[in-house]
């Protein structure tokens, strides 16, 4: 039995204190990972795990699948590369090169989930900090996020419970916890006990933000917004963990939110950290931003253009692409049926370690290794910190980087 340290790649917390026991190249015990992380790690060694190469549902060799994929991509007039949020930085970088070589459109799930917020952070429009710095925050705010279901160890490993000082013997950290949420959750329950839960109506976030701004400017505003402002003013370091609830309510329009955060920054130290779900969405955003100035929705047909029309949603709605390469994403299970029904008319190539609804409708399936478990590499945590992933299980299955590299070489030829 071997003991190894592991970085969990289930979500963008990238918990780096996971210990595993390995017997005969199989994980037999996982310590410290949450239910979500353990489920994914064990699922990766399940018999149901899909790790083969298929063309129109028939098993083929790796070479045949890769050659077919490169042919389909080369023939395509309007190829789209989508996903890569569950890939390493190295695979993402190669995928961006592939998109350039093909003159393709490239997009990821951030185009319908928090991409705009990451764009504001990378453009320095919003102050941010690392999760390590955030441990000192004396006011922690979860806005439109219930970490107990999305990032279970967030409070115990990174935020509220990691505050260096506790009052009473181990009962309450000397930090206050606020939740802004539309319904009762496990997080709001703990906020109620430790400080405040601001319950707002669905879609009311813009109104709440406008009210906070109005009160800052000496005008009248909602009573709850006034109390929220008072709490922030009385803190010395406040971190806002912005979740998908806020993103959907603002529909990605963060201008007023940015203005509010920056005005609040005049009276206290404030930082915004996005509660990103896929483990390396921020990595993809960072790489594409460094290259093009945009975190997603980029087309390389004539240099690099950016626009809403290059989002996966718009591309699929308007039946623009004739071939889509999807990596580590399952749009068929996660997007509206009324939209993804259009995928039936498009050639789909999927790179995924698992059998999913999307792999089932794919023309070509390339089974890949699970990154951070069966392949190493690097990834960027939700706060922008780069983390190295360990490989603990040996496998003959190639990782997505290797497959995409092969495709890139073939496309270049």
């Amino acid at each position: 039995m071997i003991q190894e340290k592991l970085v969990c790649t289930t979500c963008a917390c990238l918990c780096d204190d996971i210990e595993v026991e390995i017997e005969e190249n199989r994980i037999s015990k996982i310590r410290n990972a949450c239910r979500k992380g353990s489920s994914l790690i064990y699922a990766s060694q399940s018999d149901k795990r899909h790790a083969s190469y298929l063309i129109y549902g028939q098993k083929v060799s790796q070479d045949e699948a890769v050659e077919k994929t490169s042919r389909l991509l080369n023939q395509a007039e309007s190829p789209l590369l989508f996903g890569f949020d569950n890939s390493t930085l190295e695979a993402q970088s190669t995928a961006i090169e592939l998109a350039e070589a093909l003159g393709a459109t490239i997009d990821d799930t951030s185009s319908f989930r928090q991409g705009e917020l990451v764009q504001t952070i990378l453009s320095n429009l919003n102050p941010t900090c690392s999760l390590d710095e955030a441990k000192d925050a004396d006011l922690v705010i979860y806005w439109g996020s219930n970490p107990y279901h999305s990032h279970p160890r967030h409070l115990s490993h990174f935020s509220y419970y990691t505050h260096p000082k506790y009052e009473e013997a181990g009962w309450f950290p000397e930090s206050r916890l606020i939740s802004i949420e539309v319904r009762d959750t496990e997080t709001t329950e703990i906020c109620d006990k430790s400080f405040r839960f601001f319950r707002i109506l669905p879609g009311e976030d813009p109104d709440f933000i406008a009210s906070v701004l109005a009160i800052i400017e000496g005008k009248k505003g909602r009573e709850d917004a006034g109390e929220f402002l008072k709490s922030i003013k009385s803190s010395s370091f406040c971190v806002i963990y912005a979740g998908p609830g806020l993103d959907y309510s603002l529909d990605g329009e963060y201008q007023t939110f940015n203005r509010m955060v920056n005005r609040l920054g005049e009276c206290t130290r404030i930082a915004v950290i996005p509660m990103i779900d896929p483990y390396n969405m921020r990595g993809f955003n960072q790489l594409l931003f460094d290259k093009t100035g945009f975190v997603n929705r980029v087309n390389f047909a004539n240099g690099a253009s950016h626009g809403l029309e290059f989002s996966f949603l718009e591309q699929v709605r308007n039946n623009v692409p004739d071939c889509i390469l999807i990596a580590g994403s399952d749009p068929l299970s996660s997007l509206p049926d009324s939209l993804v029904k259009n995928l039936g008319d498009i050639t789909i190539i999927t790179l995924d370690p698992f059998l999913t609804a999307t792999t089932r409708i794919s023309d070509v399936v390339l089974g890949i290794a699970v990154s951070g478990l069966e392949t190493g590499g690097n990834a960027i945590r939700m706060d922008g910190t780069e983390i190295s992933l360990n490989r603990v299980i040996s496998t003959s299955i190639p990782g997505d980087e290797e497959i995409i590299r092969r495709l890139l070489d073939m496309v270049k030829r």
Partner: protein
Amino acid sequence: MPGRNSTTRGRDELAKRERPQPLYLFQMLPRTNCKLCGCKTCMAFAFSLISRDKKPEDCPPLLEDAYKPTLDQLKEIFGGDVEVNPDTGLLIEEDKCVGCGDCVVVCKKAITTMVYGGMVVQREDKPMVLQVVDGTVQVVNWRSCKRAEDPPDYCRVCEEKCRFGALELVK
């Protein structure tokens, strides 16, 4: 102490986390003090249900047709094969645990600190009592638990901090 405001319990799942109270259980029982279960009184039986020393079907009158709805209700509360850690009296319902680790860190703080003269004082380091193993919490070093001290300190911080009702101290 930070200000705290209270809320009415909302969804079903939240309400389920309320602990069964002895008086509430007593009122559900036949209240005849027949002693057929081996307890001296029905109130003692209610306490034994909470500590999981007795099961609802250990009360013979509850097996009668007239008490079937009560028996079903009690089975719902105390049903399922759950094991109480004999040393700590901690009952862990794995199905409810998400492995968030809140209990692990607050317990670690609790066993390594104490309140002395109104001040939180650091104590010697100890191996942690709880750890998340395979996605759910487990007792790994019960000897570190404040309840294992002599005299025992009946700390409930792990139970108090669990937002999923997965931990219950029944003793």
